[in-house]
Structure formats: structure tokens, C-alpha cells
């Protein structure tokens, strides 16, 4: 990655105000071929004079912006199927460095876009003959593994899972039944458990080849039963079986029966759903199930979808003005977490599919979440409630957020080794469980302004870690550890002043 213009900015440079010219070229990193129609976005560092602008490269991969005020800008290039690049990134996991456009000067950039990584290989039988149309799953190598991609083999048993960010992955063949027997889900290399799996390291612009899996023959089961839909007649219902290998759906027959086959032994979640009729809303059901034998009588009834009444109170139990409160929700399934979405509440009510859900409130300068209460979940003394809070919804329920109007805040400056303020550097704030030494909520990030200043508001009291650096993009907890993130403590209603020394890694990250 080109980082020739990686600079520590001085405040004087940021004050420049006359027109500057920015042009350049975007190429494919692997081949150097020009990339037509790539999107270039130029964003001034907070406090600068320019405006955010974007344009696309021409057929020769070239771009040129109209003259803009001199100053510091963050520049991002992207194109479909390529990893986006912030100009000045040292590596995939690092942040871009602002480019200083000088008065009445031209700046020429060359940006090389890398492709995401991929893993390829074959699924083979006992004779090394490829097994066609066999599903293959890629998991991020975490505990528990997180499913990130799925592919199916071709006629030769060849698969390719692409669009992978750099990192460690596990590859697993899915359950498959043939005329004369079944294959169990099997990790690379020939292991049936995640603990025995051999991780595969992926980097940008590279296919990791020859990750060949030989599925283990084994006993597969069937899962079936009937679903009763009160008032719904015999209209077919959709039944979905979810596991850590993804999900599959079937429709019930005329007698309301469903069947999944083959099913590998393990933990599953069963969902059923039907559209509402004239007098009732949508009906649904949720049932966790563990498979270790054939089951033909897993019967259950649909119920109205759970409706959640959200309540917002202050710590004294008085109603909290919820006009500015937004609720985020995401569904949790064995196949992974759904995308977080803002809820559109009607009278503070919302209907959900039954199952596991997590709720949180996005940071707000005016309050923080002091406590959470929901079905099977209540914040205990010493617990934090300002992150995601999980509940299991099987019927209508009350979910209560206790909000305090006295949030904490932290501000300061990021300085380099020479004690100069650094503009445009990312500052990360991580809610931190100091005792458990783990992350206690979502990581927050702001970039410093042209004066090198940052500020976080709406903080719950408790421990946090702070880090100012170009080395990472959204570092995980272990990266925060390794970078020596500064542990701070926020107190209710207090504004903490805390300067941060810019972290610079000793070696180049990739």
C-alpha cells in the first residue's frame, strides 16, 4: 500500500485556505491494471474548510477533483469486490492518514486496490474423487466459530469461498446424505470438532489453495413433527431449522407435518411462521432442539408473535422522556447474529419473531443506560447495561431501560512523541471489564479534529480503554491489549480530561 504521504500534521498546515488540486489513478493491486469507475471520496478532517466530495475514475482509472480549499483530507477509494483503501494505510487493519493539500499545488496519488482473500479446495470421497454439490462453510476462527461464508462444490468437488477479510478461518463440509450413507459435517483437516480443526490464514489478494476436506461417514437423523396453527386452517407454514451451519426451510404438508432429513447430530433452533388472518396478526413459534436420534414427533403450536412493550425510566422509577431514544435490536441465532436495526416503535411497542434477541441504545450525549430488565434478564449490581442485552422472546413481554441523565464524558488531545497534536488520528474508546479483562460493549471511534482534539459523550460510569493510533481499524480486545491502550474510569456526570500519546507500532502490520 502506498504510504508515501503519511504525515504527522502540524496545526499550521491545517489552516491553509487557498485552492489545491487533487488528482490520481486507481489500479488493481495484483496486476496494476487501471480500475475504471472506482469511487473516490475526499473528506476534510473535522474543523477543516473543505466539503466532502466524491467522484468515479474514468475508463483509464484516472480521477481529478475540482479545485478545493487547501487542508487535510481523508481519501478513500473503493470498487465492488475490492477491499476499500484509505489512503496512507500501512496495512489492511490500519487506518488511513490524512493527505495535506497545499495551496495552489497539485497532489498526485496512486491508489492500489487489493482484492479480498479466498479459500479454495476440494471435497473428496474415500478415493479422492470430488463430491459434487456438497456445501462448504467458512467460519472465522473464534470461540465459538462465527459463520462467514458458504459455497457449494462444482462437478469436480471444487469449491471457492471468496470475499474474505484477512484473518484465520476454519473450513467445514456440511451434512450430506447419499443413497448408501451419510457424511457428517467435517472440519479441515478431517476433524469433526472445532477443537480438532486446522485454521487457514487468509490475506488480501490471495487464494489459499488445496484446502481439501474428506467428510467423515456417519449416522444422520431425521427431524419431523406437526405444527398446529390455531385458526389458520391447513395453509402451508414455513418451518426453518437453524444451526451453526446455516439454515434450511421446508413447508408443512396438508396435515401440518414437516420433516428435515438428513440432520447431523448437534444443537438446532426450530422456527415456524404463518401469515396472519383477518382477526389476528402473524403467528410463530421457536423451539431449541438437540438432535441425537431420529425424531418424528416434535410437535408444537403457533402463537401470536411476541409483542414487546418498551419502557424507559429514570433511576428513581419516573418515566423518562423517550422522544429522543432509539432502540437497536438484532436477532441471535446459532448461525450468527443478524444485522442491528433501529426499531420503529408504535406507542413504544414492537412485534418480534420469537427467539433470542439483543437490545441496546446507541450512545446519546444526554443519557446512558444504567440498568436493563427483560424476560430472563435483569442487570445485577456491578453489571453494565450500556452494551447489548440478550433476552429470549417466546411471548409478549416488558423490556425496561433505566436511563440516567448524568452521563460521563472524556476529552483530550492526541499527541505524537514530540508532543505535537495529531490531526485526523482515530481514537478508540472501549467499554472494559477490568476484572474479567474483556470488552464490555461496542467499540467507539472518532478522529481528532485539526487541533488534535477528541471527545466522547454519553458514557456510562465504569472502566474504559483509550487508544489513539493510525495502526488499526476497529481493533479487537487483544489488539487493544497489545497496543497498551490506556485504562480510564468514567464517573457519573463527570467530564474527564485525558490526553493520549499516539501509538505507533514497532513493525509494519499486515
Amino acid at each position: 500500500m502506498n504510504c508515501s504521504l503519511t504525515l504527522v500534521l502540524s496545526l499550521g498546515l491545517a489552516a491553509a485556505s487557498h485552492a489545491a488540486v487533487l488528482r490520481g489513478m486507481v489500479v488493481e493491486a495484483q496486476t496494476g491494471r487501471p480500475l475504471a469507475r472506482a469511487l473516490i471520496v475526499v473528506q476534510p478532517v473535522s474543523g477543516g474548510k473543505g466539503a466532502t466530495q466524491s467522484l468515479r475514475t474514468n475508463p483509464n482509472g484516472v480521477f481529478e477533483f475540482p479545485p478545493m480549499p487547501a487542508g487535510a483530507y481523508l481519501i478513500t477509494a473503493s470498487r465492488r469486490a475490492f477491499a476499500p483503501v484509505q489512503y496512507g494505510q500501512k496495512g489492511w487493519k490500519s487506518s488511513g492518514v490524512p493527505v495535506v493539500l497545499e495551496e495552489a499545488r497539485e497532489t498526485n496519488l496512486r491508489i492500489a486496490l487489493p482484492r479480498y482473500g479466498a479459500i479454495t479446495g476440494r471435497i473428496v470421497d474415500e478415493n479422492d474423487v470430488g463430491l459434487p454439490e456438497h456445501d462448504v462453510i467458512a467460519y472465522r476462527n473464534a470461540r465459538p466459530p462465527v459463520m462467514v461464508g458458504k459455497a457449494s462444490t462444482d462437478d469436480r468437488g471444487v469449491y471457492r469461498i471468496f470475499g474474505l477479510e484477512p484473518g484465520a478461518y476454519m473450513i467445514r463440509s456440511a451434512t450430506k446424505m447419499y443413497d448408501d450413507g451419510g457424511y457428517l459435517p467435517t472440519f479441515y483437516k478431517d476433524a469433526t470438532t472445532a477443537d480438532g480443526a486446522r485454521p487457514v490464514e487468509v490475506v488480501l489478494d490471495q487464494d489459499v489453495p488445496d484446502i481439501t476436506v474428506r467428510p467423515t461417514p456417519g449416522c444422520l437423523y431425521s427431524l419431523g413433527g406437526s405444527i398446529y396453527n390455531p385458526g389458520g386452517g391447513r395453509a402451508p407454514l414455513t418451518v426453518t431449522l437453524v444451526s451453526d451451519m446455516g439454515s434450511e426451510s421446508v413447508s408443512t404438508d396438508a396435515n401440518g407435518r414437516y420433516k428435515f432429513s438428513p440432520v447431523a447430530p448437534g444443537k438446532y433452533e426450530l422456527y415456524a411462521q404463518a401469515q396472519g388472518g383477518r382477526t389476528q396478526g402473524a403467528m410463530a413459534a421457536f423451539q431449541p432442539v438437540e438432535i441425537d436420534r431420529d425424531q418424528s414427533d416434535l410437535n408444537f403450536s403457533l402463537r401470536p408473535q411476541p409483542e414487546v412493550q418498551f419502557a424507559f425510566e429514570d433511576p428513581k422509577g419516573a418515566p423518562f422522556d423517550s422522544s429522543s431514544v432509539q432502540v437497536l435490536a438484532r436477532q441471535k441465532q446459532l448461525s450468527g447474529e443478524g444485522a442491528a436495526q433501529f426499531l420503529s416503535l408504535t406507542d413504544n411497542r414492537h412485534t418480534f419473531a420469537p427467539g433470542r434477541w439483543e437490545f441496546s441504545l446507541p450512545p446519546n450525549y444526554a443519557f446512558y443506560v444504567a440498568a436493563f430488565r427483560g424476560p430472563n434478564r435483569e442487570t445485577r449490581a456491578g453489571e453494565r447495561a450500556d452494551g447489548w442485552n440478550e433476552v429470549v422472546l417466546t411471548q409478549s413481554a416488558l423490556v425496561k431501560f433505566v436511563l440516567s441523565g448524568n452521563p460521563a464524558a472524556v476529552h483530550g488531545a492526541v499527541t505524537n512523541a514530540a508532543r505535537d497534536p495529531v490531526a485526523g488520528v482515530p481514537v478508540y474508546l472501549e467499554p472494559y471489564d477490568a476484572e474479567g479483562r474483556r470488552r464490555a460493549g461496542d467499540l467507539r471511534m472518532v478522529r481528532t479534529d485539526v487541533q488534535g482534539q477528541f471527545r466522547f459523550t454519553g458514557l456510562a460510569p465504569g472502566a474504559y480503554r483509550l487508544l489513539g493510533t493510525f495502526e488499526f481499524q476497529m481493533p479487537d480486545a487483544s489488539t487493544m491489549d497489545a497496543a497498551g491502550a490506556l485504562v480510564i474510569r468514567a464517573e457519573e456526570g463527570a467530564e474527564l480530561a485525558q490526553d493520549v500519546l499516539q501509538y505507533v507500532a514497532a513493525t509494519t502490520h499486515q
Partner: protein
Amino acid sequence: MRLRLKLVKWLLLLLPALGGTLEAAIIRGAVVENLTGKPLSRAQVTAQPIGSGGPAVRVSTNPSGSFEITTLRAGAYIVTASRQNFAPVQYGQKDFRSAGLPVILEDVSSTFLNFRLPRLAAISGRVVDENDVGLPNHDLAIYRNAHPPELIRRMQADERGAYRFYGLDPGSYLLRTVAREYEEGSYLPTFSKDNTTVEEARAVEVNLDQEIANFDVRPKQGRLYKMEGTVLPGLPTATGEPVTVRLTRASEMGRDQMETNRGFRFPAAAPGDYELYAEGPGDGSSNCFILGGYLPVPVKDRDFTDIRMPVPCVRETPVSFYEKRGERIEPQKVQLLARRKDLAGPGETRLLRVSVDRVQLPPGRWELMVKPPANYCVVAFSYGGPRTDGAERSRPDGWNEVSAGSGSGALRFTLSASPGAMHGLVSGLAHEPLSGAPVYLEGYDADSHKRVGDLQMGLTDARGNYQFRGLAPGSYRLLASYEFQHPDTATMEYAGAKLVKVEEGMDAPQDLELSVLR
């Protein structure tokens, strides 16, 4: 070839001696991958008896690729090995397109057969832009190189623009990208390498066990047009909402489908002909068995942003079957086959259930064919509703195209109780009768030089005789040959198929000489 004919002659001499033998014979063998010689487990091996009409026996190979069939009576069998994504092989086949030779089993005997299964062919390449950079997730279609091109299937390139069509029969193909509109620009449907017309398209020839690589396509940039609008279902749901219908857009690029009860928006379209058809649940009565609509949309040089598509109740279509002399034939005695025909080609053939002299035909173009009861043939077809514009009049015993859904038409098929028939003897180069020889009979329109209906195939019996019954009057072509399996019209022509005329109530003798390619 001389060796093959000697073998056939030897088989012929053996067969009479084997007739009536009841002792069990055994076929053992192995199935391997042709290219590598690796054993193929879970391959299917089928022994189909010739002449006796007995059931086929099927087994699977074990993990070592071996199989054993132990329950066979002595006699002649066509033995076939197959596995998913491999070309099926009949024992004794000369090549992929040829028919297998019968395997003769004596009583209390053991025969060992080796099968080498070739993989079906593949074509791979990339969809690239003007700088040879792969275009991610771009759709492509593959066509059999015919006139007009015949759509085989569609797929999506990966993030590098790489694609791979596999499971292809040997033959000639055309590759074409599908019209696509992206945030950064739009691309016209383009044949490989970079032509928008089929006349300039570069064809590619593939064989078994072969992959043609680097067959790249560079889509041309150009203007696409919007296809958006509203469906107007004729029935509400219990809650008063319009019923949700499945809406299909068909073109020579394939089919796009969506479900909607109001607005729809298909991917932007290149200039060309399109058909929209919709189907949704009706109230179950004969006057409204479904909600349905059909709308041809020619796209030339403008956006379609307000297509209004009525999807009203559709009535069942009256259908009747009469004997030529005017007597009614019970619908239960015939099979009425139907397949939807749209710009993407013919759909799946389905059996239409006739209930109270009515059938359920959703709106759109359909092709209908009657399988008459034994000793009958179809001699006439009429339809009171509109025939499809431009549809060719076909022989009534083949596929008959109609434009269904108006509710005004009635289908009437006329059958004759005096069908034609054909029989004869197939002989080899030395004029010896040949048993187990494939004989192909093709209904043929001599004026348009086109096939009528489906190709029929029979095998000669132990004395080299064949017979076809229940034939509608008209022209046919006959061919006896081991060289082909299910030859197409051009192959029948090339192989010198014999043109014969069948007349109602007549059983025409037609002896054939085995067709041999030299």
C-alpha cells in the same frame, strides 16, 4: 466397426439358444473415472433386459468402485453405468452419442464389465471490463449453438468475474452476459468475445473430459431501460390486502421471478422482447382457479415505469376428446401434457388433470400434446381461443401451441381408433438380422423439415424385428443404428434416415439396414 458388427452377429447367433433359460447369471465389474482411473463409489449400474420386457436391475458401486448383479436371468441386456456429473456410459458404446451393444448372459455364468466414466464438459472464463479487470457477480447465460440459440442455463460470475459452466454435453455453445445496471454504469447483453449480435458471436466446441478455459466475455456498455409497474390482483386476502402473486419476466436471457401484491421493479432491461406473466391463488372455484395475467412487453427505446398488469380471476378451460366418428372419449383414458412456452424456451412438461371436462391453464403461451390410449392416435386439434401470433401450425399428434387464459377458448382433440403402425426387420452389412439394435422413429413434417412430437425408440427383438404402433397418419423418418442415442433432426438427416408415410389403419412393413458411419 467391423469388430462391432461381428460381435452383434455373434450375439444374434447366441440369442435363440438362450431363449427360455431360467438359471441366474452374474455381472460383476468396476466403474472408474475415465481421466484418472480412480474408482467411482456410489455409481449406478443398470441392467435393462432386451425383449423380455422384464424390469431393469439397478445396483450401486461400493467404496472400491466395484459392483455385482447376481439376480439376472440368462438373456441380452443393455448395461449402463452413471454417476452425477459424469456422462452415462452404455457398455459397448462407440462414443458418447452412440448406443451400447447388448451384453449376452448365459445361465450360471459370470461376466466382468469395466466402465470408464468420462466427465461432462465445462467452459470457463471471465467477464471483464475494458481494462481486462474482472466484473464481479455479473450474470451469464449459456446457449446451445442452434438457430435460434437454445438457452441452457444461467449463472453468476464470482468476485473476480470468473465463471465456470459444467455438466455440459459435448457440442457447440455460445456464451452471453446478461444486461446489468450498476451504480457506476450499465452493460448490454454481450456474446463472447464482445459482440451484441448472435451472428457475430464466437462459438465454442466442447468434448467430454474437456474444459475450455479463458473463454472471456467483455460486455459492452450501453443504455438499459426500466421495467417497473404495478400488479392489480383481482382478489383481496382475508385482511383486505391484495393477494400476493408470483410475477415472472421471460426473455431470451432467461427468467426473473419475484413475489408482489403491488409494485414491481425488474432489473433494467436491454432492448428486446419480454413477456410478463403472473400467477396467484384463486378462490378454488372453476371460475377462479387462479389469479393470472400475461403481458408481452417489447422494449425498444424508452423506460417502462408504469406497467399496469391486471391479474384477474382465470376460468378453467373446457377440453374434449372425440373419436373421429363423433363418439366422446372419456378424459380419464387420455393423458394431456402441457408445457409453458415463453421467450426463454419451453418449460417443464406437466400432466394436466381433466376435471369435469375442464383443465387449469394459466394465462400465456402453452404447448399441449395428447398421449392417446392404446390403439388410438390423434388426428385433429382445434382451439376456440387465440392461437399464438406467429406460431407454426403443427401436426395434431405433436405439440400444439395455444394462447391460454382468455377463458373464451375450448380445446378439442379428435382421435382415430384406427392408428397406423410400422414393423420390419433390421439387418446388418451381410444382410443378417440384428437383435438389440436401436430403431428410431421421428414424426416429421416434410414441408418444414422439422420434428413433430417426441422421438420414439425401440430395440429389435431376438429375431431382429421391430414394431411401432399407435401412429398418427403422416410422414415419419426411420433409422436403425448403434451410432447414436436419441439423434436430433440434423443427425437423422446426416445418417440417411428413411422417409416413410403412415396411413390410418395401415401397418406398413419397412425393413431397415443398419446405418453405419464410416
